[in-house]
């Protein structure tokens, strides 16, 4: 009895360490994107008209659709975590994890169509048409591809992490008592969502 108690205390402490670790990592990510947001705000302040023209080229519908997709994926991952952690329902957790990965894939597919359309219109770094545009317009698309590209990379990493988590859940390596990896994977996924919450209005909704 006493040994099982000390074990559970140890497992609890382990959880706190894991949480502090992941949060420190998430903060470094916030500062990484923060630097880019600072660059963005400076260039936008100096070239308001060109940024507006650049934003007009983006599809508001695609941006809104992707926002809803990512918000929903945040819901499914938190439901998966809750199902396993509190309700101890392995099956439901696996289904909702798979749904989260599927929504991540949906996001990337929409994004690829969006980027494809920009490429077709000659709006990509180094394109002759884009080079002939005003300076601020070029800056807008440089920032657009860099920031949404880095974000898409984060979505891919998040999907890989969640695939491992799903695999562990199916192989019973993640249990309601040993849930750190899943918790941290979910926290990372939420961060990806938060970054998109800011990217969306800054690129798609310049009025």
């Amino acid at each position, binding site marked *: 009895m006493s040994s099982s108690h000390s074990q559970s205390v140890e497992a609890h402490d382990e959880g706190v360490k894991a949480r502090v670790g992941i949060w420190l990592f998430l903060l470094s990510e*916030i*500062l990484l994107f*923060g630097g880019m947001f600072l660059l963005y705000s*400076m260039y936008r302040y100096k070239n308001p008209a060109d940024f507006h023209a650049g934003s007009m080229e983006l599809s508001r519908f695609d941006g809104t659709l992707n926002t809803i997709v990512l918000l929903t994926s*945040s819901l499914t991952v938190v439901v998966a975590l809750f199902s396993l952690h509190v309700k101890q329902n392995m099956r439901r957790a696996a289904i909702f994890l798979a749904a989260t990965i599927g929504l991540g894939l949906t996001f990337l597919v929409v994004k690829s169509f969006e980027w494809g359309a920009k490429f077709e219109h000659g709006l990509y770094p180094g394109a002759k048409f884009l080079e002939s545009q005003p300076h601020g317009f070029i800056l807008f698309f440089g920032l657009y591809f860099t920031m949404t590209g880095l974000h898409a990379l984060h979505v891919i990493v998040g999907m890989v992490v969640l695939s491992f988590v799903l695999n562990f859940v199916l192989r019973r390596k993640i249990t309601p008592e040993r849930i750190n990896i899943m918790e941290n994977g979910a926290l990372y996924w939420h961060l990806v969502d*938060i970054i998109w919450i*800011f990217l969306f209005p800054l690129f*798609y*909704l310049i*009025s």
Partner: protein
Amino acid sequence: MTYPRYIFVWAGLVVLTAITVTSASLNFGRIGILIVLAIAAIKSTLVILYFMNLFFEKRLLLKILVPIAICTLAIFIGMTYTDVLFR
């Protein structure tokens, strides 16, 4: 937290998204950027508190980490702006 509460938070996030998109097409001019940023801040606060579970966090260290990051960013951005605006 329970399932319905998570869905409630999600519905709130979707409604706020709809408000942002509508406000952008209404053309508020210069304060438009402040409106969309304020809504983005509210949305991320909802995600951090309820989806990332910081609302129920008991450890002080974890509670203050996010405010520290926001202050650091505010200092970076504030200092850069004072440099650029008063050069």
